[in-house]
């Protein structure tokens, strides 16, 4: 009995299999995509990935202050802190007086203090020291980066200027700048 082998076809199959195996060994280390196989229906898949860095945004700021009437000036502003992932944020406040919280009228400057409340629905203000970072703040907006939709404004900042300090200012306007920086945690 003779057995006749078609060596040419066998070699072709071996080459194709080898290529397939080589391709699989090569692509498996770089891509997670899987290739379809030949058939009536062929299915493959692709893994899609994207990286979203933590983002924050502070908006809704308004100028603060008032007219001195003989008592401490206390003014607050509700604003928006947006954070795109769940988690806390931190807040750092500085002033324009070389970092210090100062307002000035000509050569005369007086201090103001700053308080922060990360929940406008209640709770006390926490004092902020110039340049110091207050951590662990939450209740941020996650859907809208300017709070125009979603839950609305989220936090509140308050400034206080003591009457005893106001009494040392000459008549007229005294101004300064409050700089607020938020960062994700």
């Amino acid at each position, binding site marked *: 009995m003779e057995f006749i082998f078609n060596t040419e076809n066998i070699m072709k199959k071996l080459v194709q299999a080898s290529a397939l195996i080589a391709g699989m060994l090569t692509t498996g280390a770089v891509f997670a995509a899987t290739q379809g196989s030949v058939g009536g229906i062929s299915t493959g898949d692709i893994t899609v990935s994207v990286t979203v860095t933590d983002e924050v945004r502070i908006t809704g700021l308004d100028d603060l202050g008032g007219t001195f009437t003989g008592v401490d000036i206390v003014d607050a502003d509700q604003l928006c802190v947006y954070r795109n992932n769940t988690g806390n944020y931190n807040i750092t406040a500085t002033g324009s007086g070389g970092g210090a919280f100062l307002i000035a009228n000509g050569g005369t400057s007086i201090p103001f203090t700053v308080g922060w409340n990360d929940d406008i629905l209640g709770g006390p203000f926490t004092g902020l020291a110039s340049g110091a970072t207050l951590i662990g703040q939450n209740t941020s907006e996650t859907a809208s980066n300017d709070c125009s939709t979603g839950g609305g404004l989220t936090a509140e900042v308050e400034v206080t*200027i003591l009457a005893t300090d106001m009494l*040392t200012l000459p008549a007229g306007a005294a*101004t300064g700048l409050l700089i607020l920086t938020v960062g994700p945690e």
Partner: protein
Amino acid sequence: MKTFFTFTIPQRAICCVCVFLLLLICALNSNAATQGTAGPTSTGTASVLVVNNDLAWIKGLDDINLGTWSGTGDMSGNDDICVLTNYFPFQLNNYIIRASGDGDGADPSAFTLSNGAQDIYYRVFFTDVNATPVELLPGQLMGGQQFVAGFGFFASLPAASGCPVPNANVEIRIEEAELATGGGTHTGILVLELIPE
């Protein structure tokens, strides 16, 4: 009959005024705050602005008790006080003083002391930096009073310090003829108003 609208000069002037007022209102209401942008950190700013109007402060006032009349002569007493302002430069600005008493039937500001049944009248003299007393009339404004350079400003006298360096004086004088009509203890309130000029 058609009516034509004519744009006359007075109307243009009114429009210009309206535009100016609108711009002025916008400037006064402008918000200098800046909003943060989304990113790994976000920074916004808010201006802190306070307005200090012209302010005056009269302090160091003490009650004046003239004691018991001996039966003859006039009586007087005085009180050193502090008059302060934040209007800078204070030494170049004057102030107005006005004194008002408990009044009588004719003048609600008359300088009167009452024992409950009758009034006696007193006179009020005020001395500023010039050290020359001027008589104050009930309810009348007396302008041109001058601050002492260096002591008119709030900063030189902290709130809790009282009046360690007075810069004015108020004096009460009761003439013998008035005292002679009185009987018992007469009291009254003298109101002093300090108004920066």
